[in-house]
């Protein structure tokens, strides 16, 4: 299996470049802090303590997972082309799809490992603080699976950028802009439109679909359906009902698939 050979090499490189360590420390640190502090203000409200932690971690993951995904992937093709290692790789008997899938699987494993470490710490800390009884683990599993999907979407976007611009410096700039737009500016724009529309037709018909069209928002909706933690969350909560679980799932599945497909299409046209 040539794909596995690529996966193996990319995992080795990710370990040597400290990408694994960086991602795990990032995710681990933030989830531990949020788990320990997240329960404090709620006190004993009778809410599942894990659910509180999952909500805080979801808010954080919306920012962190796309960032890690883009950082892992923006260099994948542009960097190799620039360093001159791509031309030699392409003279070996394997297809470009195999190279791309190999890199994708390796990076997804790195990301998944970091998320898993974070969530296991969360589960461990919650059990330690509140005892193991009465805790539903389903939100945690759902958070892990959707984190993978969200990460996969941004990995694919990163590869697409990497093979489109072919210069690492430019690619890094472009992915930062994409990250800003997807996790910050897009929501701000939608909020502005909501305020301007003041409960009109846009709010009821277009807005819910625009919201799930962004994979980061679909991820947020699917993991915190009925929590009124913030103004944004309450607006989103109402909209979540309109697009429904199907829309959210479709967004989280379509984005990785399409991003990877277009990344492959552009990578095919790269002449090293």
């Amino acid at each position, binding site marked *: 299996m*040539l794909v596995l*050979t690529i996966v*193996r*090499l990319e995992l*080795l*490189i990710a370990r*040597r*470049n400290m990408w694994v360590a960086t991602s795990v420390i990032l995710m681990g640190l933030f989830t531990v802090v949020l788990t320990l502090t997240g329960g404090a203000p709620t006190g004993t409200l009778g809410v599942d303590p894990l659910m509180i932690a999952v909500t805080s971690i979801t808010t954080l993951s919306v920012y962190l997972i796309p960032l890690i995904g883009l950082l892992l992937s923006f260099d994948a093709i542009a960097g190799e082309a620039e*360093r*001159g*290692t791509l*031309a*030699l790789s*392409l*003279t*070996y*008997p*394997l297809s470009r799809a195999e190279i791309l899938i190999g890199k994708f699987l390796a990076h997804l494993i790195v990301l998944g490992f970091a998320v898993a470490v974070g969530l296991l710490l969360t589960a461990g800390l919650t059990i330690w603080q509140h005892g193991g009884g009465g805790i539903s683990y389903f939100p945690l599993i759902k958070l892990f699976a959707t984190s993978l999907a969200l990460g996969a979407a941004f990995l694919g976007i990163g590869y697409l950028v990497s093979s489109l611009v072919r210069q690492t410096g430019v690619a890094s700039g472009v992915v930062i802009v994409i990250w800003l737009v997807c996790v910050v500016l897009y929501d701000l724009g939608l909020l502005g439109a909501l305020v301007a529309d003041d409960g009109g037709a846009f709010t009821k018909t277009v807005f819910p679909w625009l919201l799930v069209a962004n994979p980061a928002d679909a991820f947020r909706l699917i993991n915190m359906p009925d929590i009124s933690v913030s103004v944004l969350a309450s607006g989103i909560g109402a909209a979540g009902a309109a697009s429904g679980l199907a829309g959210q799932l479709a967004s989280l599945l379509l984005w990785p698939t399409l991003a990877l497909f277009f990344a492959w299409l552009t990578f095919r046209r790269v*002449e*090293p």
Partner: protein
Amino acid sequence: MVILEIENVGKKYGPLETVCGVSFPVAAGERVALLGHNGAGKTTLMRMILGLTTITSGQIRVLGTAPGSRKARTATGFLPESVAFHGALTGREQLRHFARLKKAPVKQVDELLNRVGLDHAADRKIRTYSKGMRQRVGLAQALLGKPQLALLDEPTSGLDPISRHEFYDIVDDLANNGTAVLLSSHALTELELRTDRIAIMSKGALVANDTLSNLRLGAQMSIRIKVTLETGAVERMISEIGGERMNGKSVTLTCLQDEKIALLGRISSYGPAVKDIDIIPASLDDLYRHYSQKTASEISEAASC
């Protein structure tokens, strides 16, 4: 058996023609040197043979299949000009990866590391390697899986003279085992004894493709003969045969290839007055200059270019 066939191949980047009407075969066990100044189209030709870039006109067959096909890639070893690897890997890890991609036995990696003299540094990160060491890793990966075609682009750049010598020993071994070798180089002198055939490219076209001795014949370039004589005989030889006096003791004569034997006969008639004779044939540098200039005018006349 012909491993590589190049037939009337051309490559255009927009209006710019970088390779034009190039044809030559490379047979199993043959060592062919591809010469040409920078921008003559050598690297572009190699990239077309590898399937890294499209061919605009003509066709290339590697083992009877299209360039870049899985069969062609499996059978080809390639050493790029200024080869690069991932600096975070060790030489052994990088080569094992390439061996797996080529489905070559992983234990061949250890043999090759020995063969290119890298066994002592095999477990160090490639980023600590010198240029010569990276070139050796590059050569080792090109030898993985016993290729039927070896494409070596400027393989000896960055190697010291002893390493160059060892490099050509490896090339000889390859050719003796039936690999077709196509290599490009700027270091002309080292190619003289180490290749079977020389192909010269100029401005994208193939201007010569023959053995070194045939190229010499075709070029009609003069051979210099330096004769060292007893002092009294120098004047006599200049008046009888001609030539130029050098520092009072020797005479330099020039002649064409087919006049050489007759001239040597006349020199030997001086008997013991002749102390030494040096025959200096046209060097590859002279030949290369001759062929790439001669044809600059012919290329522009040819309709196809």
